């Protein structure tokens, strides 16, 4: 499990995954920002307006997610929020990096917003756990 410090002394679980692709950053950028290309790998039906503030929706067998495009930095960074109806929202951030073998693509997904805290309430509990473990130097 990975914990990341956030403003306000809160901690959140987050997921970071990466892949190395034999393709140029330009090709990877197109594959993660073009709605037709996104349908090849992220969901069966994708509607996405790749500008900051643009709408995004993803429909697949396991349901629908929708959100808003947050960051568009050509061939470098792309981020949007998404959530299933009635569930907590997450921020999904892609980072593109040219490497000798092609392109490294990193994705980080982080729960955001008050719903994420309410769902199970594990965010404040993790913060308290960190505090309690720091308190006592016992294995």
């Amino acid at each position, binding site marked *: 499990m990975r914990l990341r410090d956030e403003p306000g002394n809160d901690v959140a679980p987050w997921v970071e995954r990466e892949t190395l692709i034999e393709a140029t950053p330009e090709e990877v950028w197109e594959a993660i920002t073009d709605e037709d290309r996104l349908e090849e790998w992220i969901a069966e039906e994708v509607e996405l307006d790749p500008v900051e503030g643009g709408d995004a929706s993803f429909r697949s067998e396991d349901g629908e997610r929708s959100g808003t495009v947050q960051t568009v930095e050509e061939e470098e960074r792309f981020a949007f929020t998404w959530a299933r109806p009635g569930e907590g929202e997450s921020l999904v951030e892609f980072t593109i990096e040219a490497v000798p073998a092609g392109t490294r693509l990193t994705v980080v997904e982080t729960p955001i917003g008050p719903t994420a805290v309410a769902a199970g309430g594990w965010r404040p509990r993790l913060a308290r*756990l960190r505090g309690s473990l720091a308190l006592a130097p016992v*294995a």
Partner: protein
Amino acid sequence: MLERLARGGTITASGIAEKLPISRQAVAKHLAALRSANLVSSERVGRETHYRLRPDPLDDAARWIQTVSAEWDHRLEALRRSLETRRGRSQ
């Protein structure tokens, strides 16, 4: 200590202190901290306090991390395949 708790059942401060090279007072202080973090529950039995792990909060976070990691591994593999297949066709 969390490992011992995770094996199930209940523990007491003196029971833990007997098995680990730390004082009963240090154990009691640590258990009290875990209880105030809502990670263990306690029950008074005679003169001893018995502690039991409450696994729910960490389970929720761990489950989320596991599910979301698997989803992204699956998607990124599909993306990689899609891009490399496309490139293979154009060469």
